[in-house]
């Protein structure tokens, strides 16, 4: 599932079933920054902490609150392990919420 987060920090405290996944944005501008985005309700946190303040993007033209680029555009992606390392957010990852394929379970 390309639209599911690879690494998440929590289940969504707002909608319940969403995964609060780590995204990295601003890659082409060489100023990468991190976001936590619920993959169901699109709540956004600017730090890896879902008890902090959250916000929502525009429903039809969602943009990154930090750089105003399209939230789901080519500038950003669900963060890989290396991305999370670059953001300094590795400690926030909850491994049980990682998306794994069947092969990962073998």
């Amino acid at each position, binding site marked *: 599932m390309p639209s599911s987060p690879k690494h998440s920090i929590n289940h969504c405290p707002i*909608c*319940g079933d969403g*995964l609060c996944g780590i995204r990295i944005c601003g890659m082409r501008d060489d100023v990468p920054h991190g976001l936590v985005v619920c993959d*169901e309700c699109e709540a956004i946190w600017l730090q890896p902490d879902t008890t902090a303040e959250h916000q*929502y993007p525009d429903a039809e033209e969602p943009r990154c609150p930090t750089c105003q680029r399209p939230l*789901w555009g080519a500038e950003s992606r669900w963060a890989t392990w290396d991305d999370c390392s670059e953001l300094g957010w590795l400690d926030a990852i909850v491994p049980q919420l990682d998306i*794994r394929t069947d092969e990962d379970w073998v």
Partner: protein
Amino acid sequence: MDKSVPNRRSKTAQTTWGGLALAALVAIYSFARPAIDQQMGWNLPAVKPAALVGDKPVVDTRERELVHGLLRDLGNERYLSPAGLLFTRGGAEGHRLDHLERHTRDDPTRPGKHGVFDGGMPGALKTIDRAYDRAKAGERTTKEIDQGRTIYTVDLGGRVGYVGGRVGNRQSKPMARRVRIVLDKDRVITAYPM
């Protein structure tokens, strides 16, 4: 020639009785449908009388053009449901309908729960519309408002799907009878059974 007359009369009589029986069944169904829907938590289709021009029925071609048999195309990738919900661009998949489609099949590797609607996209859309109608009426609904987003959780009183994902699969995919709908005004952000 003469012999064909009684046969034709007999066939005409059969046709008349058949038509009357069919009309009676349609009348009984139309009368009982709301009560059955209410009792069972279903959403049985209504029987609509065909419009007539002269003595010829006119087929309403708009129904054929409805997306997933329910949504009216407003143009610019905007689709309107009978209950008034809008499905527009947006979301990781590019369109809210594409996101909804993820909730018409299980994702067994997904961490946590993953609600799956019965009936594919037509079933999902009908269930969401039924839930939204209930939500607007305040029936078996909890409502939260958060920064312009409205989150309804609606109990539909009967099965609307199941809980999949890793958690659901560990529990043998339990039945779901509630629907959670996240809206931005009347625009659907997501909806799933739970």
